[in-house]
């Protein structure tokens, strides 16, 4: 690649660029959204495999939960609405199962009789009927506190979906039904299909909202920087072309747009103009300085001056972002590929399309931005900074180290998000619904435990019972249900309270068999098969609980594990909450892999570029500093590590390294020109430092658009990436010069790079 190439083939380059961009628009129209968090993780994950195995035996465990809230859910009007809603949902094909208070079979024994009937068939109309129903509910431990809250303010309608692909349709049907059958009750919905549907809608909204805002902000920033139409339109067109090209890669590579994918266009806005901006800046500088030079000469000189640093910066950014490829999260890995190729495309356009187009445009000899004599506040700050650095380098380093240790201590308190609930805002009806379920309805999380063996064997049933007892002692466990719940229900119906067999697993296999057959005759055989398979060789224990931390989920798993070890049962644990837990834990390992890859790649690149290992070490110091302090501050301010915030290290490393490269480049130039370290640092920080600061500012402004996202975790990402970039900038302009004053590295004095 040389200057002649960009000028000689300028029309071919311009036309080829246009063709590539137009051709990229076609695949973009085929982009599909994938809001299913579970699919973001590889199938080899143990919890995912176990959950799939459990679903193969006991069917799809996915549910949509509709919570109704009113002062008393047993009011005739509320119970009438629940019946109408429940009947209507049963009439809509699509839901495999609909459960409300009307679908509870009550099997009770009294005076030698077993009464087997629906808990409630029709809404009660008189006060005495309502109070009788209230007492019946209070005495039914299977529903009191789970289907109906103990204060009778909440009740649920649970819908099982048939397939996972049409969440939006299901939610549409539910909302339509709720509108068709209005009432005074407040309605809250939760369940994975609802979460996916809401997230899917917000992903689309985010792209529609953030992209134009990001582009407008970037355009304003370019205008403020260059005060020239060409100066705005050229880098801006590079941004647009890079976004189109990178987004087209998603369907072309057979991928779907995930919640993480929202970051792709915004990252391109923040990064893609970096290289073009440098070119325009140099172009304007030369046009003003050399009014007599021809346009071809100026373009050629720009390329000569910028080609190497721009390519190096581009490569290091790509290396950092490529660290995401090793991430365990599939969309993060895909984003690493897409953004890396997008950056490479932006880099290529900046050294081909931008000079080619500039060379065919009319040259201006005066640019406002270069004629101003005012140096501005930024210059003063940089000048004072460089003076401090050169006069008291040891003190600067001490302050940096102290701040590092204080901040990084917070890493000990960094929490990992236990679930995906925080994807949606805290005040979203989904999260309100989760809070209600946690507080009043036994919990919003479910762990399914599959036990293998002879399910009619009382010995095995007692082992399960012991495990259930242990689990029920945990304060945040709402309910534990299994085939034992049914067996005990029948034992209460068949025996009087004073009998030894009342509410007890019987001693013989025959009795267990006969209890289960009795339930089949009087209850619902399909309900029994929610807890044991057809052959009575597998049983399912369903643990309903609330948990805010991974530690709480681990406590339940520990109890299950202990029971497994003590009783030698064959057990599998699964459930969406375990997949989420597994996801969160793998995020940490994914973070390590990405970080190690990015730092190693950048270390090697810097070592090669500057021909020195010291350069590699010094260049990575600001990056590690920024990562450690950012994670430390996350711990101190209580921000969680989640699927999005876990991406910051790779991205900030890839972008932050540019600042150090530019500084090294300038220092090298000044030192080669014969300056001493003090003088070279003063000059570099006040001149190139200004460019670095503006560059950093433009990237930060680009990412600041994410503050408008509908996803709180994307907003957290914006805060953390900006913080991290700011730290990289401060390190590049203060810490690195201080180190240079003390170490006086040889690689900066070498003539050739």
């Amino acid at each position, binding site marked *: 690649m040389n200057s002649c190439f960009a000028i000689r083939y300028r029309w071919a380059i311009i036309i080829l660029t246009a063709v590539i961009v137009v051709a990229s628009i076609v695949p973009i129209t085929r982009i599909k959204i994938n809001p299913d968090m579970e699919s973001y993780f590889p199938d080899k994950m143990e919890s995912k495999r176990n959950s799939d195995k459990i679903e193969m035996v006991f069917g799809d465990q996915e549910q949509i939960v509709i919570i109704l809230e009113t002062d008393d859910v047993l009011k005739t009007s509320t119970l009438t609405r629940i019946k109408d809603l429940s*009947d209507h949902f*049963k*009439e*809509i*094909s699509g839901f495999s199962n609909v459960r409300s208070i009307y679908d509870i079979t009550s099997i009770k*024994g009294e005076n*030698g*009789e*077993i*009464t*087997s*009937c*629906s808990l409630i*068939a029709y809404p009660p109309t008189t006060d005495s009927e309502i109070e009788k129903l209230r007492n019946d509910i209070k005495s039914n431990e299977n529903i009191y506190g789970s289907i109906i809250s103990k204060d009778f303010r909440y009740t649920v309608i649970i819908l099982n979906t048939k397939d996972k692909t049409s969440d939006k349709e299901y939610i549409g049907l539910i909302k339509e039904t709720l509108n068709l059958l209005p009432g005074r009750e407040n309605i809250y919905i939760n369940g994975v299909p609802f979460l996916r549907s809401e997230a899917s809608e917000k992903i689309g909204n985010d792209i529609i909202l953030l992209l134009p805002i990001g582009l407008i902000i970037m355009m304003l920033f370019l205008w403020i920087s260059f005060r020239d139409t060409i100066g705005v339109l050229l880098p801006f067109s590079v941004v647009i072309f890079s976004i189109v090209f990178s987004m087209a890669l998603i369907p072309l590579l057979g991928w779907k747009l995930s919640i993480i994918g929202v970051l792709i266009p915004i990252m391109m806005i923040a990064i893609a103009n970096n290289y073009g901006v440098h070119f325009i800046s140099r172009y304007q500088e030369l046009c003003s300085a050399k009014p007599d030079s021809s346009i071809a000469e100026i373009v050629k000189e720009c390329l000569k001056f910028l080609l190497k640093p721009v390519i190096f910066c581009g490569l290091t950014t790509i290396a950092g972002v490529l660290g995401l490829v090793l991430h365990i999260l599939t969309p993060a890995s895909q984003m690493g590929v897409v953004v890396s190729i997008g950056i490479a495309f932006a880099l290529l356009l900046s050294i081909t399309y931008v000079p080619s187009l500039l060379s065919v445009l009319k040259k201006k000899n005066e640019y406002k931005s270069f004629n101003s004599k005012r140096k501005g506040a930024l210059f003063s700050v940089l000048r004072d900074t460089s003076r401090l650095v050169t006069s008291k380098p040891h003190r600067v380093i001490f302050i940096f180290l102290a701040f590092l240790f204080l901040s990084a201590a917070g890493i000990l308190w960094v929490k990992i998000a236990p679930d995906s609930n925080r994807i949606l805002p805290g005040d979203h009806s989904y999260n309100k619904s989760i809070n209600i379920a946690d507080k009043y309805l036994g919990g919003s999380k479910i762990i399914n435990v599959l036990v293998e063996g002879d399910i*009619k064997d009382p010995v095995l049933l007692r082992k399960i019972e012991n495990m259930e007892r242990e689990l029920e002692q945990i304060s945040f466990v709402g309910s534990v249900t299994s085939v034992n719940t049914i067996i005990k229900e029948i034992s209460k*119906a*068949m*025996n009087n309270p004073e009998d030894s*067999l009342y509410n007890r697993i*019987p001693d*013989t*296999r*025959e*009795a267990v*068999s*006969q*209890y289960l*057959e*009795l339930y*089949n*005759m*009087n209850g*619902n*055989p*399909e309900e029994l098969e929610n807890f044991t398979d*057809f*052959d009575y060789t597998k049983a399912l224990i369903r643990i309903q609980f609330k948990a805010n931390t991974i530690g709480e989920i681990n406590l339940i798993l520990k109890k299950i594990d202990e029971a497994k070890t003590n009783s030698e049962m064959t057990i599998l644990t699964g459930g969406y909450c375990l997949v989420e837990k597994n996801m969160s834990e793998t995020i940490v390992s994914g973070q390590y892999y990405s970080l190690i890859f990015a730092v190693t790649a950048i270390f090697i690149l810097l070592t090669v570029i500057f021909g020195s290992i010291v350069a590699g070490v010094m260049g990575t110091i600001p990056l590690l500093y920024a990562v450690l302090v950012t994670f430390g501050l996350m711990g101190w301010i209580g921000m969680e590590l989640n699927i999005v915030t876990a991406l910051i290290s790779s991205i900030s490393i890839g972008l932050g390294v540019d600042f150090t490269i530019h500084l090294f480049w300038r220092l090298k130039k000044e030192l080669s020109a014969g300056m001493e370290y003090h003088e070279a640092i003063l000059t570099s920080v006040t001149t190139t430092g200004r460019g670095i600061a503006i560059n950093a500012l433009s990237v930060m402004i680009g990412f600041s658009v994410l503050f408008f996202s509908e996803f709180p975790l994307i907003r957290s990402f914006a805060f953390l990436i900006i913080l991290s970039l700011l730290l990289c900038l401060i390190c590049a302009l203060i810490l690195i010069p201080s180190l240079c004053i003390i170490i006086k590295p040889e690689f900066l004095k070498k003539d050739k790079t």
Partner: protein
Amino acid sequence: MKKEKIGKRAITYALFALLISVLLMSAGENEDIKAKDICLKSASVVEFNDIKLSVTLRIYNKDGAERVRKLSSVTKKYGEEGKMLLRFDQPADYKGTTMLIYDYETKSDDIWIYLPSLRKSRRIISSEKGKSFMGSEFSNSDMSKPSLNDFTYKILGSENIEGHDCWKIETIPNEKAVAEEYGFFKKISLIDKETFLCYKFETFDIKGVLIKTALLKQYRQISEYKYMAMTMEMKNEQNGRRSVINIDNYSEGVSLTESEFSPSKLEWLSTCKL
């Protein structure tokens, strides 16, 4: 004059239309009565006053896994009251589990169950006839004679099934409560025009979606007007499960006395020779 003529003609047309409507309506009513009669005859032709059976009940899940139950039953009618005893013979786990049913024409049945493992019996109070019969896809209502006045009947037409020219009769519960009790909102039966034997029936839910399909096969003539389906198959169209009842043995004449069809005798009935 002309106006007068037109008026007379209009009255004549109106009266004629009214007459036609009345005739049509009464024809419709007759059709309904006919449909009900067909169903009544169809129920009677398979109703036995005094019979002993050995049956095998096979229950299949949607994957084809099988559960086998062997049962003995005796039925005897005392006046308007039918008394039935059902006893599990196999598998060994259930052996001796016994149900005693008093089947009434005008009120809910009385049911008792005896569990040999506990040596205890309990009376079961339930008005829901749509519940599973012995954990199979058959419901209790499929096993007993329905209260014909709870339903409205209609002949939909004719249909041929395996060479039998049948009436296609629609049965609709008169009230939602009846539908919920029996577990269906519509039933379509194919009843042989000659023998009144039902060869197939389908039940539908509130949405009009098919719930179950029953096939009754291998009818055997027991006496002059009495037949018995030796094989009955019920398929649950919504969950893919299937149950088949085969009559292995039958004989007319029950040795048990009326007093032995008693809840207090259940322990003895669970082991005695039927």
